């Protein structure tokens, strides 16, 4: 970390997005995490994604729980809505907010402790319901704030900084998300922004529960030999299934791809994902196959990254509940109290 605020100076020729903002306009206050923390790279990736999508900061709500990861919303989108909730309770707060105002973009930021331990139930039900959100887990495999005990996502057999062996089985949040019905599931690495930024952009454009597990080395407590979440280990064992180019809606596809090498996935909002396949015959729309692929490679000690699953026709919680199309705060007396004739019609239908 640093005690200095980042100077307000910026590069004189910084590119601007459609709103006239530079990426610096999407920053928050300076990070107080340890120097070199993977979470700060994820913060930078979120900033970059929102900048490239020309998102209006006031259209975003960033919601988090407790932990190193859950501190990070302070460090990006300084002009967005934010809610730092109770440990593990980000999904409930976010679900409530989403039901009340369906027009905002919801970024749920959580960590492996927050989502895989105390908030595991919250994690499960939020994905099961298909809340329209981006659920990012900044996954470092340790409890950084309490000095590096194993978390529930630490791999069995991995070593702590003090040499202890982890004997518990690990929770694979990606596998759980697939089982629980998340309609967009990806895994990435904080040290690979070229992969991470397009995934975040695609997840924001996705209408439904989008889950991203980002492996984020803890430089203070989990970046040593014997760790399976260190920079070196993840770089050596990274098995990327695809590389993603995200294209916003209505834009013609400018890049020419070799036929057969790329799969174009059209999303509901008109945006398109161009997937350059790295693993042959990987089937993006097959939940079962994705699970199998994941477990097969996990058994070999490999970490599968990339966009792993997208549902062809996702539906979100609002569709399931047939809620009103507009945010609740826009409903006024005439809509909320439609009058005697409406009541008469309802009564008549029940007779």
């Amino acid at each position: 970390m640093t005690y200095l605020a980042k100077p307000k100076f910026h590069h004189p020729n910084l590119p601007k997005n459609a709103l006239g903002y530079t990426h610096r306009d999407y920053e928050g206050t300076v990070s107080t995490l340890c120097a070199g923390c993977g979470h700060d790279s994820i913060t930078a990736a979120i900033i970059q994604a929102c900048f490239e999508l020309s998102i209006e900061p006031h259209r975003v709500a960033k919601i988090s729980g407790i932990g190193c990861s859950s501190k990070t919303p302070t460090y990006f989108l300084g002009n967005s809505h934010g809610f730092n909730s109770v440990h593990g309770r980000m999904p409930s707060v976010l679900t409530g907010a989403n039901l009340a105002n369906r027009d905002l973009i919801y970024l749920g930021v959580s960590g492996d402790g927050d989502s895989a331990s105390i908030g595991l139930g919250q994690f499960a039900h939020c994905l099961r319901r298909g809340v329209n959100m981006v659920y990012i887990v900044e996954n470092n495999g340790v409890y950084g704030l309490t000095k590096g005990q194993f978390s529930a996502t630490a791999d069995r057999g991995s070593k702590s900084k003090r040499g202890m062996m982890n004997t518990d089985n690990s929770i694979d949040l990606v596998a759980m998300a697939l089982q629980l019905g998340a309609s967009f599931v990806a895994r990435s690495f904080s040290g690979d922004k070229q992969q991470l930024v397009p995934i975040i952009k695609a997840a924001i454009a996705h209408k439904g529960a989008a889950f991203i597990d980002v492996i984020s080395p803890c430089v203070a407590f989990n970046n040593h030999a014997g760790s399976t979440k260190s920079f070196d280990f993840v770089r050596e064992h990274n098995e990327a299934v695809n590389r993603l180019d995200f294209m916003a809606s209505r834009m013609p596809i400018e890049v020419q791809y070799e036929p057969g090498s790329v799969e174009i996935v059209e999303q509901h909002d008109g945006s398109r994902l161009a997937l350059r396949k790295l693993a042959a015959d990987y089937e993006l729309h097959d939940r079962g196959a994705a699970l199998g692929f994941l477990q097969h490679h996990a058994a070999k000690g490999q970490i599968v990254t990339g966009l792993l699953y997208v549902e062809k026709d996702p539906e979100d919680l609002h569709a399931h509940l047939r809620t009103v199309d507009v945010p609740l705060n826009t409903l006024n007396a005439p809509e909320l109290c439609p009058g005697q004739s409406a009541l008469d019609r309802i009564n008549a239908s029940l007779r």
Partner: protein
Amino acid sequence: MKNTDIAAPDYFHKVVDCQWACPAHTPVPEYIRLIAHGRYSDAYMINWKSNVFPGILGRTCDRPCEPACRRDRVENEPVAICRLKRVAADYKDDVTARLPRPPQHKNGKRVALIGGGPASLTVARDLAPLGYACVVFDGDQKAGGMIRTQIPKFRLPDQVIDEETGYVLGLGVEFRAGRRIDSMKALLAEGWDAVFVGSGAPRGRDLDIPGRKEAAANIHIGIDWLSSVSFGHVSKIGRRVVVLGGGNTAMDCCRSARRLGGEHVDVVVRSGFEEMKASPWEKEDAQHEGIPIHNYLVPKEFTHENGKLTGITFEKVKAEYDAKGRRRLVPAGEPDRHFPCDDVLVAVGQENAFPWIERDIGIEFDQRDMPKVDPQTMASTHPQVFFGGDAAFGPKNIIWAVAHGHEAAVSIDKMLNGEDIADRPTPAVELISQKMGIHEWSYDNDIALDQRYKVPLRDKTVALRDIKAEVELGFDVALAVKEAHRCLNCDVQTVFASTLCIECDACVDICPMDCISFTQNGEEAELREHLNAPSLNLAQSLYVQDGLKTGRVMVKDEDVCLHCGLCAERCPTGAWDMQKFYLEMTHAGKSCRPPTPAQRRSAA
């Protein structure tokens, strides 16, 4: 691209834009930090060593450092480097005890220095402490040359000149006042071991147009008039004055005229306002005193009546550019303009003049009748004769004269030690980590937006009444400290060690200027396309280091780096460090001796 060799003295020197741009390579950020700490005498001595005349230059320097200043690129105005130099001179304590003492033993070698201006005095300053007997010849009574005769006193008071020329003469340098050299042959016959010509460019160019002879009584050559003013021979001028010319001499002329009775003073230039040779701040100072500058007017004729000047007629021109971008002034087709006036000051350029150097004594001259001088060694074609300052390559400025003086002193010292003057050791370079603690650096790295502070001026009505009243009052301590804090400390370098890097991106993310990228290597042009921020300033280097685990390279574009050290604060492994670069220029004496065999071995 290949790995950047940061051990080469020039690499980090170029990053310190001000120091690189300074002909004498003064360590600017180092003395600005000392000013911020209130260590004025230390700041002064760093300047004195490098540019000999800090108090004089702090008021009059052409400041090539300021347009180069990085602050200019990242904010919109450079640090007021020149005026901070003056602060060091204004607030220092008595520095006489810190100056070198005249040597106890002379080395028996005698050096003649022609002209008592900045070039000669620099040579004397460098050589006298080494034991050389230095004798300065000057036609005037006091040392200083053009510094004393041509710069108006309201910009540079006499006591500053007396003080700083005094420091040089106090080193045991002999000053022969009123002794103008009129024969080089005769001088050489006196058996000097070396002769240095620092006689300046003393001849003001005239303007030969109709009416020049008839109205001669009221037409004055700018630099001659300025020295007459300086010596008190001239104390008034007509009510309406036209100054011809767009250089700094013209600016000094018009401002002096304004103080000697010129109520309506106009400056008229042939070129456009932007292309004028005068420094922007000097034009600003003239305009501030109510002097309009008229452009694109070519003088055609001096008008006169009964042998008395009545004015000047000008033809209006416009600029046209040919295919090669060369400018030509062509008639604009407008009616001529007449400026009625009582006096004209002609400041349209200066020329060198060497009628006193015989052409048969081994000093060769070129087609333009300028001596042939080696730009590095300042040697002429005569083995014992060296040139410097305006005498060497035509009119430049004080700081160039100082730089020439240092180089000539090195050459003279080497020659008289029997060494090859072309074999010049590179400057000594030092890189020292500035880390004091986890988040603590030995310099102030908390950079904030802060606009340039203005130097307080004397009230205009008071200033215009007295030609000796200095216009600029100089920064007070509070302003000086604020302005000093604007310096970005570009000499505190970002030094990268790939072996320590874990490629966590922390430096990339925190860098406020997006200077740092990790990418695939390529040729420079290609690499510049792939950086995190547009890399358009090709004059600035890319710092490239390979040896990373992923096979990528670290590329840092030096262009707009704030030297805030956040990359180093954020680096978890210490792969980035902030190291202070200090460059010791090679001056006459020990540092210019050829390396010993042992030194050569260790360098290899």
